[in-house]
């Protein structure tokens, strides 16, 4: 369902991604890990055709993301790292706008909005201005717009970023509820969350894919009891130099 072939991306002289290749099958839930600045968001933006790679190709549902961007985006539900919301709209107005842009037939828009309001437990606040809602609610609205057109592929960039533990639990449960039959690529710094949701792990470091295997085999190979241990082993903390 998602194929990346030798993707490279440069920002000026900085090589953000180097020869990234992987394949994700239908219905797989894949955790995408890496330190800040490792290249996770860049890769996700390329997969959604928001950015164009300098080299390599990517396919979603068999369509080239660079050549067939509009067709690809019909299959994708994307939650960007920063919630892309219009604070002056109500939740319902925003979801209607998203539904119209995502090619949902006019006669089905009301039903699609009702479904995601229910799935994301937003019905109670549907007529509230987005600006007046908490970050947890805003993240749920972001997920609601991502799934409103019932996409086959979900790309979620840090869906629990900045949330408190209760909100994280709510969002995790929401992802579990909506994952059925969908291919999910999930980037997060919350390793506990990945362990709970994903069955396969991709780890990226300085633009290079350094691990691509099942959670079970990764833990076994690294002789670790949890992902945090694996992550710290592969991405050791930098020792801060003191000039005193």
């Amino acid at each position, binding site marked *: 369902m998602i194929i990346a072939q030798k993707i490279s991306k440069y920002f000026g002289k900085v090589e953000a991604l180097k020869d990234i290749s992987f394949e994700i099958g239908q219905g797989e839930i894949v955790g995408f890990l890496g330190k800040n600045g490792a290249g996770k968001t860049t890769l996700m933006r390329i997969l959604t055709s*928001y950015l164009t790679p300098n080299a390599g190709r990517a396919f979603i549902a068999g369509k080239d993301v660079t050549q067939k961007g509009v067709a690809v*985006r019909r299959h994708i539900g994307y939650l960007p790292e920063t919630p*892309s919301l219009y604070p002056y709209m109500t939740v319902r107005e925003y979801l209607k706008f998203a539904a119209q*842009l995502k090619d949902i037939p006019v006669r089905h828009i009301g039903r699609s909005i009702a479904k995601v309001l229910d799935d994301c437990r937003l019905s109670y606040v549907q007529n509230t201005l987005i600006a007046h809602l908490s970050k947890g609610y805003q993240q749920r609205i972001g997920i609601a717009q991502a799934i409103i057109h019932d996409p086959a592929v979900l790309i979620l960039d840090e869906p629990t970023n900045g949330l408190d533990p209760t909100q994280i639990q709510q969002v995790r449960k929401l992802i579990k509820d909506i994952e059925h039959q969908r291919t999910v690529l999930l980037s997060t710094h919350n390793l506990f969350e990945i362990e709970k949701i994903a069955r396969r792990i991709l780890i990226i470091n300085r633009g290079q894919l350094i691990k691509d295997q099942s959670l079970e085999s990764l833990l076994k190979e690294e002789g670790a009891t949890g992902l945090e241990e694996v992550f710290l082993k592969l991405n050791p903390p930098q020792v801060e130099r003191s000039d005193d």
Partner: protein
Amino acid sequence: MTNKILVIARKELFTYFKSPIAYIILVVTTSVFNIFFYMIIDQNREATLHDIFQVMEFMFVFLVPLLTMHVFAEEKATGTMEFLMTTPTTNTDIVLGKYWGSFIFFSLMMVMPAVYYLIIEYFGQPDRWAVATGFFGLWLEGAFFVAIGILTSSWARSQVVAAISAYATIFLLYFSVSFLKYFSGPAVEVIRYLGTLGHAANFAVGLITPGDIAYYVSGIIFCLFLTRISMENRLWH
């Protein structure tokens, strides 16, 4: 016009009316136009809108960048551009939708001055053709300024930078004829053609020429084309 263009245009209009700046601009422009209309009619005692058209044109030079500065810059600064561009919507639909939304709002500023015609028609015998072409010319010029504002907004992440770039471009076009004395040869004709004043003046006296219409229409298309390129260029950086 595709459905997506309409959806985005409607959202742009919605954005204008959710912010106080839309109401402030509408009230201020209408008030200023009314004051000038009264002063001009009171002083000249002529059933013509020629002078008020000049005032309106001058006001649009200052107002349009304020209207358009947020169009792309705000979406980029808040991250909603990423939402728009990851929906199955083409860049052309986004540019045209945003342009139409802003242009419709600009057209609202032209509604109140239409009443001036009724007033001079009641009290005198105006040249109806010159009034109609004057309005048409002003509307075309506004449409061109809106396209320039949309273009400069697509370059910037900051609304202030977008507005300053729009002012610089529009001032250059509007005041270019004032610098003709410093040039000679073919440059004079080129600058005269590129400047907006001569084209608008023709409309204001009842002259509609293909050259003037082509100037504005090609200017609008050129700016929207550059806006689309500006969006696509971002994809590579």
